[in-house]
């Protein structure tokens, strides 16, 4: 059942990338980027166990964010890249402000969820701080690596996304898990989590490479 749910989520994200670009063009991808950043942020607090493998919920959404970036970088002019980062920063800042406001309010006597909200956001304050920073760092690095590889005449998006996933993905997993779960989990568990996240990330990236290729071949259709 868990595997099916995971596959369903994967198919959903894949379709979203494809449909957003097909029906709403670049504008759709910007909205999807915003949506994925906030959802990914909220998912980053949970660890799931599927077929004995432990990994963070946000792996799918993080790879989706990276894939949206590749498509935008391919479709955008170089000066438009600043907009991607600006939108990401704004989405993250607003999310953090709202989460802090959410925790500042004193709950009513009938409230039953504030203890759980505190357990998620305040107990895991390291994730709350580190995930946005690492995500933004990754976006900046992806833009940089993309431009460098393009200059070196690597035109295949499959090659670019694979290089980014293998190198940056590993750094992302190490930083996120080691800082996010520092003192909360044992070193052995953190290493296991890093490796599992990395493995799942690579698998999803391979699937997404075909989607990105398909999306990049799409011609703009006016549905108005």
């Amino acid at each position, binding site marked *: 059942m868990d595997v099916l749910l995971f596959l369903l989520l994967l198919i959903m994200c894949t379709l979203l990338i494809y449909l957003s670009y097909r029906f709403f063009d670049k504008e759709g991808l910007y*909205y999807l980027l915003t949506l994925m950043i906030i959802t990914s942020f909220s998912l980053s607090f949970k660890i799931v166990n599927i077929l004995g493998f432990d990994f963070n*919920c946000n792996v799918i959404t993080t790879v989706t964010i990276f894939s949206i970036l590749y498509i935008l970088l391919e479709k955008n002019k170089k000066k438009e890249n600043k907009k991607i980062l600006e939108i990401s920063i704004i989405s993250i800042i607003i999310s953090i402000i709202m989460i802090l406001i959410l925790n500042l309010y004193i709950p009513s006597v009938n409230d039953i969820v504030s203890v759980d909200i505190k357990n998620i956001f305040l107990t895991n304050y390291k994730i709350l701080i580190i995930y946005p920073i690492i995500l933004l760092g990754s976006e900046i690095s992806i833009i940089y690596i993309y431009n460098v590889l393009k200059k070196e005449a690597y035109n295949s998006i499959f090659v670019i996304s694979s290089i980014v996933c293998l190198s940056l993905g590993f750094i992302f997993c190490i930083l996120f898990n080691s800082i996010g779960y520092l003192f909360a989990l044992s070193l052995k568990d953190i290493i296991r989590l890093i490796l599992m996240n990395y493995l799942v990330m690579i698998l999803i990236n391979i699937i997404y490479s075909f989607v990105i290729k398909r999306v990049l071949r799409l011609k703009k259709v006016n549905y108005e």
Partner: protein
Amino acid sequence: MNNIIFMVEIILISIILLFLFKKYKKEGLYIFIFIATIISNMMLLKTVEIFSIEVNLGLVIDTIIFIGANIITQKYGPDEVIKLIRYLLLGSFVSIIMIILFSNINSSILNQVTNSSYDYINKDAFRIYLANILAMSGSLWFNNILYYQLRKIKNKIYISNILSTIIVQFIESIIFITIAYFIKLSFYEILQLIVGRYILKSLVGIIATPIIYIANEMK
């Protein structure tokens, strides 16, 4: 304490809305409304007391979304808001479905307390999330028509905004509370929640009227 945070939240959200409008124009308003809807879904599970009225959190951000939509109607016409509602429906459904599906996947024993809290909050929250999305998109659609008609009859921002706020927030409160709590709570409790939500949302909507004036003056 809550009353102070409530006022600070109104100011803060209004500043964010105006900043995004100044920087990205129409696209900025779209981004704001998009982010705000997803976040308001996360917030509304917590209940707080503001001015001695018990309400679900997230009503400030909810009401400012209507102000954002009114700016779009005022500056770009009602068709733009219809386009926005389409994006909004799609985006919020996708976001809540993802969160709920992940909550139903078996949690790891690592970081167990957080995982359990995450599942506890989201597993049965679909009804409240759905109530928010339906109430929001339905009343945004009605607000769009009403604001535009009022603007056509009497071209005064404060009349269009205040009147549409008073009428639309009443409808929104009824839809949200009924879908979220019908059968779960008694009729009297539901009525109390509707009235409380309506009073506070109308208050925020009226207080936020100057935002439309400021946005209207922006070039």
